[in-house]
């Protein structure tokens, strides 16, 4: 048993879940509350908060490892890492602007939704940075999996399973994360005026180069490629990329704020924030991104931009009817991938599948796994299920 500042809070939380299990009381898990409107509406009157399970219990910069309670504000973790010139490499999205929420995002929610931003294509997703978890399952049992070391194949990897389970398998109480050094320099190679398909080809060329691209997006008519590292690396790779992309046009190199703000905007979907419309997040193979958008255009008014080299398509469509669910899902099925409804009116989120419906055999397997962790379906009921 660990002994940390949040050990007692974890025990108390487990006690509460056990009581809810015994009574069959559904629970909505709350962190900072900034992402309450994500996923399907939860069918629960009672809220259980991770706020008490908070604080950094271990940080070893030389081992690139940090361990924190699930309720720890993300900002607290990022501030601690910044002191040592390190960061969370997976660049989690801040949903507040897009969803119009306030509050403090927590690391628990980042883990529970496998929340990863532009650097996902190079540094991996949140799930890849997660080394270990503690969680309370639907019976109120505290379970530990993984650890705090970077290589660990001891037993099943429930850490990955918990990442992206949206609280439906357990209440995550602690997360151990791999962190990475923050770079000395960052630059963005920018091309303008490319159509979507050509832009994605340019991004593929950049990602297929040896220059270790850490961001590849096409937004607002600009095709952006990010590189990070020591000054000497960025100074070499920037011009090398400009040369490699010459056939797509004359690229410019952005640095400093000019470069940084673009990636924050891409990460947080700034283009769609503060505007009316339902927002979808679709994961396909990169060259299918433009095909998806082209197929949808005749069917509905749609705004789109691309991250992950084209593989992550953000769509904004009218927030009415099924918010385009049937058409978007049909395309995702043809292309192979998955679509998640990120923002829509509550009535629409309640009526359509927020997450991609799975093929029957996979859905059955998923349901069996879920049943093993939360036999009475008391954890975030409705969040992931349609």
């Amino acid at each position, binding site marked *: 048993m660990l002994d940390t500042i949040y050990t007692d809070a974890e025990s108390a939380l487990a006690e509460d879940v056990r009581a809810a299990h015994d009574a069959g009381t559904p629970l909505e898990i709350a962190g900072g509350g900034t992402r309450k409107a994500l996923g399907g509406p939860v069918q629960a009157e009672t809220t259980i908060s991770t706020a008490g399970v908070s604080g950094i219990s271990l940080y070893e910069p030389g081992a690139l490892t940090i361990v924190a309670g699930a309720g720890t504000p993300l900002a607290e973790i990022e501030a601690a890492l910044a002191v040592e010139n390190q960061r969370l490499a997976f660049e989690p999205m801040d949903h507040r602007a897009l969803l119009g929420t306030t509050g403090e995002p927590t690391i628990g929610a980042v883990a529970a939704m496998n929340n990863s931003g532009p650097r996902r294509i190079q540094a991996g997703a949140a799930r890849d940075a997660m080394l270990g978890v503690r969680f309370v399952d639907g019976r109120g049992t505290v379970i530990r999996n993984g650890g705090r070391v970077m290589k660990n194949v001891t037993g099943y990897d429930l850490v990955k399973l918990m990442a992206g389970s949206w609280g439906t398998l357990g209440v995550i109480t602690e997360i151990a994360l791999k962190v990475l050094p923050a770079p000395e320099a960052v630059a963005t190679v920018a091309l303008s005026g490319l159509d979507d398909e050509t832009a994605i080809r340019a991004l593929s060329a950049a990602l297929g180069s040896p220059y270790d691209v850490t961001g590849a997006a096409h937004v607002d008519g600009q095709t952006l490629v990010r590189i990070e590292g020591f000054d000497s690396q960025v100074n070499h790779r920037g011009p090398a990329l400009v040369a490699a992309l010459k056939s797509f046009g004359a690229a410019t190199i952005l640095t400093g704020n000019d470069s940084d703000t673009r990636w924050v905007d891409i990460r947080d979907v700034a283009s769609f924030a503060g505007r009316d419309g339902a927002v979808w997040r679709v994961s396909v193979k990169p060259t299918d991104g433009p095909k998806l958008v082209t197929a949808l255009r005749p069917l509905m008014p749609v705004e789109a931009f691309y991250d992950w080299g084209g593989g992550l398509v953000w769509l904004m469509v009218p927030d009415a009817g099924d918010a385009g669910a049937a058409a978007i899902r049909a395309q995702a099925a043809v292309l192979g991938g998955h679509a998640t409804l990120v923002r829509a009116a509550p009535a629409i989120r309640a009526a359509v599948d927020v997450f991609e419906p799975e093929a029957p*055999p996979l859905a059955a397997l998923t349901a069996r796994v879920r049943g093993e962790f939360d036999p009475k379906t008391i954890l975030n009921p409705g969040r992931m299920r349609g």
Partner: protein
Amino acid sequence: MEMPAPSEFVLSRKADIVARLQEVLPDDAVIHADEEVKVYECDALTAYKCPPLAAVLPASTEEVAAVLKVCHEMGVPVVPRGSGTSLAGGALPTADSVILGIARMADVLETDYENRFIRVQTGRTNLSVTGAVEEEGFFYAPDPSSQLACAIAGNIAMNSGGAHCLKYGVTTNNLMGVRVVTMEGEIIDIGGAHLDAGGLDLLGVICGSEGQLGVVTEATLRILAKPEGARPILMGFDSNEVAGACVSDIIKAGVLPVAIEFMDRPCIRACEAFAGAGYPDVEALLIVEVEGSEAEIDDQLGKIAAIARHHNPAELRESASPEESALIWRGRKAAFGAMGQINDYMCLDGTIPVGELPYVLRRIGEMSKDFGLDVGNVFHAGDGNMHPLILFDANKPGDLELCEAFGAEILKLCCEVGGCLTGEHGVGVEKRDLMLHQYAPEDLEAQLRVKDAFDPKWLLNPAKVFPIATTASRRAA
């Protein structure tokens, strides 16, 4: 090491089982003669052997499904096998089991350079995945040292790593999708050429499940553009503490090498005697490799050398050419062979928090004296994945048992300092009975429940990973 007693009922039905398998597979794909099944009696953990009831070599996913259906229906345990290079006994059969070998499924199904993935049948060897894409300037990153022989199926089962995972991650970080066959014979596709799961991340739990949740027949793997170049620097130190502190300082300085390899004195001496790589006779040796253009490499190696100089290295040798690089790596790459030259050895795989390195090495040295067995240490220092090589004499009665007891103590030590039993080899049968040193019973119970969901009858590789007492009731059910 204890294995469950074979089911007399299954053994008595061997002829029926073979006949049913022959109905769904070509004749040459069902191996059942006593002298022929012996080929499958062990994997690379050769201390344990047991010929299986039969072995099958399906050539397609559909044939795999057909085999599993038959075995499921007849209640026969199935042990999946890639290339049989497991050091943990992951493919060790029981007498009542059917070995399902994937070796006939080794095709490349799709390569897509624009989208940076390759889809292969999982009998394909690790190295030949890179072989299929390297002409286009790409590679598959996980590089276990058995990569010439080991199959992707086994890599997925064990979530294999390698020397370069400090930068590129292990198998799970490079696996995008699988086609998996359940014990019931159902074919399920999970993931694909797109990123991340639309629902629960079952791919993440299948990877590293040691063939207990399903048989993976196809895999979509991420491929990466090859770096412009790579070069190592070699450093020698007079103490393990100082070498450990140097590793930590390199990482803290923001340099992220592709590999940081660490060797202690016994290992350095063995390698030097065997390979003549020109290693200095020091307490600890570090090989740090970085990637990039020539100028980038010079710059990074310069930064690393400057950090090392703060720690008064006994030796500091930056490679300036491919020949010098090869020489620096020659000893390290020969480490296992060099130790094997001295005696039989057992290779451990525990991982520790990097900061605990000096303490753990000191304790291993003390234990080596207590047990009267020599040990050399070579490991991936950047991520704390140790490979203590314990020397013993297989022909000397009691030496293997002594070596195993020593190994168990080292692994318990790894757990005590916050690490784990295995960083990249897997649990198999080798470390099965140590699992309760790392996990509490309820932690293991959660894992057993996952297997319940995938394989309710507990027929897939059932006697592995977990202490057999903890799984007895499930296996008997």
